[in-house]
């Protein structure tokens, strides 16, 4: 048994979870949604084992480090955090209907990590720049934020969809499994708070790390700048809720924009712009 087998299984199991969730809301079968959750939790356990095993394997290779050091490892970890946060959130709010968004994103991330020729899945030693205890704190906190924003994205899209439905009250297909728009708005707010808090820690740990490694807590590196852009967008979301006329759809659209910014921070910067973090493209 090695970590690549477990992580391979993970990829397909997330696809299964996504399918169950999607089928559940499409055909109005709450039971299938429950299976979706069970499948997601089971997959999470397999993935946890895979990550821990990969960690151990890196020690066996003689240059042990936490599996957070390149694009492959961060995609695996990102999908893990996403599903973990989602499962806890799902339990808290008692709605399963939107599970296909996080499980779907987790599947796409895993599939991309496993099958894209551009992503190296081999365990590599750490380059000197990454040899720091800040690495773990920085990556983990950033991904907590990104994961929350991914869920917020799902909630915002559902919210916008709900509002659209509400404009045509006669349409028959009001899906009772999906929470109402007020609830969605409230859930989204909770997620944005959570994400904003963790992204703030992520940016700050990155900044403190940069200060101790390169002597500058802020250097307008493209990745840094894009995380600031993301942060500004979500700061706008938080403040927009307190402004009359900005509640509702505008907040939802801002959250969608925020998640696009997250995606660009993560992928766009690596592939299109260069900077300190460009090691991540390897």
């Amino acid at each position: 048994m090695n970590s690549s087998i477990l992580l391979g299984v993970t990829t397909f199991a997330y696809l299964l979870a996504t399918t169950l969730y999607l089928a559940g809301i499409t055909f109005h079968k709450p039971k299938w949604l429950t299976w979706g959750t069970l499948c997601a939790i089971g997959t999470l356990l397999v993935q946890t084992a895979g990550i821990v095993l990969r960690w151990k394997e890196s020690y066996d290779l003689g240059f042990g480090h936490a599996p957070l050091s390149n694009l492959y490892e961060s995609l695996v970890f990102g999908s893990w955090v996403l599903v973990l946060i989602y499962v806890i959130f799902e339990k808290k709010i008692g709605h399963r209907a939107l599970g296909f968004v996080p499980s779907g994103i987790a599947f796409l991330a895993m599939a991309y990590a496993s099958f894209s020729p551009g992503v190296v899945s081999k365990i590599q030693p750490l380059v000197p720049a990454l040899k720091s205890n800040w690495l773990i704190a920085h990556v983990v906190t950033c991904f907590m934020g990104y994961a929350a924003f991914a869920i917020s994205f799902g909630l915002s899209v559902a919210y916008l969809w709900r509002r659209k439905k509400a404009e045509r009250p006669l349409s028959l297909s009001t899906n009772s499994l999906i929470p109402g728009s007020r609830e969605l708005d409230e859930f989204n707010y909770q997620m944005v708070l959570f994400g904003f808090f963790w992204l703030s820690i992520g940016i700050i740990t990155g900044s403190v790390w940069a200060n101790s490694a390169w002597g500058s807590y802020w250097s307008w590196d493209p990745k840094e700048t894009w995380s600031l852009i993301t942060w500004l967008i979500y700061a706008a979301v938080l403040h927009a809720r307190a402004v009359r006329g900005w509640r509702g759809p505008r907040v939802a659209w801002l959250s969608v924009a925020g998640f696009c910014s997250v995606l660009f921070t993560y992928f766009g910067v690596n592939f299109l712009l260069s900077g300190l973090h460009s090691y991540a493209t390897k």
Partner: protein
Amino acid sequence: MKDFHERVLWLWKKLGSLRFALFLFIILAVGCIIGTLVPQGLSEREIFSRYGPRTARWLVTLQITDLYHSLGFRALLVLLGVNLIACTLQRLPKTMALLRDRDEFLDPAKLTKYALHRVMDVPLEFSKVRSLSEGLLRNAFGQVQHLHAPADTLSLVVEKGRWSRYMVYIIHLSVLWIFVGALAGSLYGFKGVMNLVEGETSNEVFIPRKRAMIALPFQVRCNDFHVSFYENGTPKEFRSDVTILENDLPALHASIRVNDPISYHGVTFYQASYGAVLKKARAAFAKGEGGERFELELPFGEALPFGSTDLKVQVVDFTEDFSGFGPAVAIATWKEGEQPTGSWILMNHPDFHGNRIQGYHVTVLETERGYYTGLQVKRDPGVPVVLTGFVILLVGLFTTFYVPHKKFYFWAQKSNPGTTVVVAAWSNKKSLAFEKEFQHLCDRLADAWDRRNEEK
């Protein structure tokens, strides 16, 4: 005059408004995006050759190639600061007044309008309900406030987390505090680079932003630079062993690694880059097939007579990789008092036709190389300010988001027979957890009364 006053008031209101804050957030985000799409920090020459004169003139005028240090961007940050200060000054007094305003008595009719409330008829004497409930609330929350009430009535209030309502102001202050730290750094600090060849001592730091040198009040000597690699060829460690000298006397021996800088008298040295330098090159100069041929030993940067001619020769530059052709040495020759001419000699391509100087074909036979270490040198008195700002920001975010301000109200009155009780609760953060907490409290109260009732 009144008109003027009104206008100032209007402007002040606008400056402190949330809409203005939203506007600034979005404009700043757009500014940042532009800054990541247009390469930053290019020299004017690079800008012109890359974009052509027309676009380049615009880019330079609008400072788009140095956007984050441009006047416009700084103005936006200043406006954000002003916005924050104005907003705080406008809102803080209101918040304080609101929070200072305490309940004086409880009106049961009002309590039953709370989203969370419960009305209970308790078959127990008022005095028993009174002591039981008070004890239970005190146990659960520590402190319980008594409000004015007639003798047959009990009015209690429990309040938690009032202070968390002020934390949003702490968040905003921490942002200003971070701005102050950044400003202090840019006014009283410097950031530069110091390239030291192994064995070299210097106190000069090059400041790229100002294109100027500054001198440190002490000297730095690079004793050794060391780079090691993993088996697969990726770098494992970069290390500079340095000595700090005060008045030519060693004051500190230390190693600088990536992620492991050293500090001396407020100046911090970071391992930033490294490169190879040429110490000496031995080269052969030959004229045609079987023609004149001689060899020279050329220490880097030292002018020597060029064979038997009246020319001087000097190695003026060295690079590890010349446009993908490998290492190359730049050799120049000149006649005393005239302009030098020269060319790059490719070391790994001895037959390259461009390896030619003054009609001689040049072959580099041997080189003696060393390393130089590139140290980032920084002094930033703003760092402690910024770091404390970070900590305060995080504490502020956490408490604002997750410490609710909540109040529990308890009202009881003698009725015949028994006692009428109204319990209500309010929180600035509606949540399922709070609802549960309220229900749990009510259940515990009811339980306590039931038990006492049975004992009787």
